[in-house]
C-alpha cells in the first residue's frame, strides 16, 4: 500500500508549504542573490558610487596568496571541528544512554552549552586559556607547557577548535541520544547473549544503526564549521596570530562588516556558498551510499 496523503483541495498543500517557502526565499535566496549581485560590483561603504566590475572582485581574491592560504586553514579547522564534535558527543551520548539514575540532570547539563552564543563561548574559553590570567594557562605552566596562543599559531588553532567544538557538542549529543534510544534493546540483548563484548556490540550494531544520524550530523557540523564560527574567532584570536586562524567566514565578516568592503566580502561569501554546496552534494552522493537507513 502506498503511504501517501492525498489532498482533495488543489491549493491547500501549497498553502501549507507556503510559509516555509516564503521563509526560505526571504532569508536564504534573497540574501544569496544579493551577495551574487554585490560580488559583481565595486562600491564605496555608503553605496554612493556603484560600478559593475564583472569578475574583478574574484580575480583580486585569487591573486591574493593569503586568501588561498586561508582555504588550508579553513579545511583544517572544519575537519577538526566536525571530527571532534561528532566523536566526543557520540562518546557522551553512549555513556548518558546507559545512566539510569539522574539521567535527566546529566542530559540537561550536556545540552546546556547549546544555549550559549558562539561569541560568549569564545570569550569563555579565551578567559580560561588567557596567556597571563587563565586558569588552564596556570595549570599548563605548572606542567612546563609554554602556553601563549597570542603569538603561537597552533595553540591559537587549538583554542578556537576547542571553543567551537564545545559549543556544538550539545547539538550533536541530542541527536545521538535520540538515535540511541530508537535502537531496539532486543538487538543488543541478543548480541550480548551470543557473547559479543560491549565494544563489539557498539561497532557492529549500534554504530551502523546510528549511521543516518552520524551522516546528518556530519553535514550539519561541516556547515557549522564553515559558517557559524566567526563569533568564536572574533571573540578570541581575530584571525591571528598572523593568519593562523583566519578562516574563510571570518574574513568575510571582517572585510564586510568591520571594513565595509562589500564587493570583496560578497565575492568571498559567494565562493564560500559554492564550496558548501559542492561539499554537501559530495557528501550526499558518496558518503550517503554507506548509510544504512
Amino acid at each position, binding site marked *: 500500500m502506498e503511504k501517501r496523503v492525498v489532498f482533495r483541495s488543489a491549493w491547500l498543500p501549497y498553502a501549507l508549504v507556503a510559509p516555509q517557502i516564503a521563509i526560505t526565499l526571504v532569508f536564504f535566496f534573497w540574501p544569496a542573490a544579493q551577495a551574487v549581485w554585490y560580488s559583481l560590483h*565595486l*562600491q*564605496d*561603504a*555608503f*553605496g*554612493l*558610487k556603484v*560600478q559593475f*566590475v564583472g569578475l574583478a572582485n574574484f580575480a*583580486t581574491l585569487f591573486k*591574493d596568496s*593569503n586568501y588561498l592560504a586561508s582555504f588550508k586553514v579553513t579545511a583544517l579547522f572544519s575537519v577538526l571541528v566536525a571530527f571532534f564534535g561528532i566523536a566526543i558527543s557520540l562518546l557522551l551520548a553512549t555513556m548518558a544512554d546507559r545512566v539510569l539514575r539522574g539521567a535527566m540532570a546529566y542530559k540537561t547539563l550536556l545540552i546546556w552549552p547549546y544555549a550559549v552564543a558562539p561569541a560568549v563561548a569564545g570569550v569563555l574559553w579565551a578567559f580560561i586559556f588567557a*596567556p*597571563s*590570567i587563565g586558569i588552564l594557562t596556570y595549570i599548563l605552566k605548572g606542567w612546563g607547557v609554554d602556553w601563549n596562543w*597570542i*603569538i*603561537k*599559531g597552533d595553540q591559537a588553532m587549538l583554542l578556537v577548535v576547542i571553543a567551537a567544538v564545545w559549543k556544538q557538542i550539545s547539538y550533536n549529543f541530542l541527536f545521538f541520544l535520540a538515535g540511541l534510544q530508537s535502537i531496539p534493546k532486543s538487538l543488543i540483548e541478543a548480541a550480548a547473549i551470543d557473547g559479543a563484548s560491549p565494544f563489539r556490540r557498539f561497532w557492529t550494531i549500534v554504530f551502523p544503526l546510528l549511521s543516518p544520524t552520524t551522516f546528518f550530523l556530519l553535514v550539519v557540523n561541516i556547515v557549522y564549521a564553515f559558517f557559524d564560527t566567526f563569533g568564536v574567532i572574533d571573540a578570541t584570536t*581575530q*584571525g*591571528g*596570530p*598572523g*593568519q593562523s586562524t*583566519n578562516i574563510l567566514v571570518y574574513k568575510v565578516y*571582517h*572585510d564586510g*562588516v*568591520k*571594513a*565595509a*568592503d562589500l*564587493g*570583496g566580502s560578497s565575492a568571498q561569501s559567494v565562493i564560500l556558498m559554492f564550496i558548501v554546496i559542492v561539499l554537501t552534494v559530495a557528501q550526499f552522493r558518496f558518503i550517503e551510499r554507506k548509510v544504512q537507513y
Partner: protein
Amino acid sequence: MRFRLIAAALAGAGLFSANAYAQTEIQWWHSMGGALGEALNGVANQFNASQKDYKVVTSFKGTYGESMTAAIAAFRAGSAPHLVQVFEVGTATMMAAKGAIVPVAKVMADAKEPFDPNAYLPTVTGYYSDLKGNMLSFPFNSSTALFYIDRNKFKAAGLPPVPPKTWKELIAAAEKLKAAGQDCVYTTGWPSWVHIENFSAWHNVPIGTKQNGMGGFDTQFTVNSPLHVRHVSMLADMAKKGLFTYAGRGNQADGKFQAGECAMATISAGALAGTIKAGKTDWELSFLPYHDDVKGAPQNSIIGGASLWVMAGRKPEEYKGVAKFFAFLSRPEVQMEWHTSTGYVPITKAAYELTQKSGFYAKNPGRDLPVRQLTNKAPTENSKGLRFGNFVQGRTVIEEELENVFSGKKEPKAALDDAVRRGNEILRQFEAANK
C-alpha cells in the same frame, strides 16, 4: 543611564510646554561606554541646559566599528543620525563619502557660527582636516601612545627608577630587568598604531606617499623603509631574548601593565585612569622611546581616538544646532572638564592653557604629557597624521605581518615588504571604488 535619559526627555517636554515652541533634536551616535559614556552624557546635558532651541540626544551604539557600521547602514536606509563618532582609522572612508557627510567647516560657515581653525591644536585637527586646512570632522576624543614604566620593578633590578629615553637605553634596562628575574619586561598595545604609525611620525619618516595619504587616494605604503625594518628587527630580537612580550593587537597590554605584570609598556595615554585605579604599580609616564641616531627624532607623535562626523540629508535648521553644539564643545571650560575627567587631550590651545592655569598638571603629574608629546615640534608632512583608504583592513594586514615576525615565521624585511604589497592592493581597491 536610561533613567537619566527619561529625566532629560521629561525636562525637555517641560520646556516644550512652557515655551510653546519645538526643540530641534540632534541625534548623536557614539561608542563611549562606562565612565566615558557618563562623561559624554554630561557634556550633552550641559549643552541642553545651556540653551533652549536644540536638544542633543545621545545613543550608545557599541564599539567604534559597530557605530560606524550602524551609521553606514542607517545612511543607506535613509535615516542617518546628525552626528556619529568615528574612530581615526575610518577617516578616509568617511571623507571619501562626499554626499554622505557634511564637512565641519561648511556646517560652521553655513550657520554663521564664529569658527577659527587656528584656535585648535594642529596635530589634533590636522588629522581630520583637508590639505587646505578645512576641518572635515570634529575631533572629540583624542589620545596618543605613551611610555609607562613601573618604578618598583626598576628598583628591584637595581636600576635607577627613571624611564629610559632611547631604545638603546630601553634595551640596556630590559636586559638588567630580565637578569633580575623579571618575566614580562616590555610589552606594547596596538602594535600598528604604536610601532608603525606613531613610530614613523616620531622619527619623521613617512608611513605612505602623498603626505601619508592626505594628498590623494593614489598613495602607497612605505613601511618597509630601512628604518622600519631596523625597528621591527630590533623588536623581533627582543622577543627572541624574552625582553619583549607580545600581548595582542588591541589594548590587552593595558591590563598586563596595570596588573603589575610588566616593567615597561608603550600603551595609550588613555590607559592612565585604569592604571591609577588598579593601584598595583608605581607608574611613571614619559615620552615614547626613540632611536637617537635618527636625524630630527623625536618629532611629534600622532593621535588615536575618534572624531564626530556630520551626516548629510538633514534640514538646514538642524545643522544650525549642530554648529551651536560644536561651538559649545570648543569652549575652554567644556574642553578642560572633558580633558581632566577622561584623560583625552584638549583640542584647543585655550583649553590647554586654562588647564595649566588651574594647577591640574601640578597636582596630577604626567597628565600634560600627551599634549606635550603631540606638540613636541611643529608637525611635518610625516607627522600630521595619516589618511589611508580602508585602513581597518590595512591595519589588520600590518598587524598580521608583525605577528609573523614576532612568532619567527618571517624575516622582518620580508614581512614588511608583504605588508606594503598587501596594503597597497587594499589602497588600489579603495581608489577604484571611490573614483
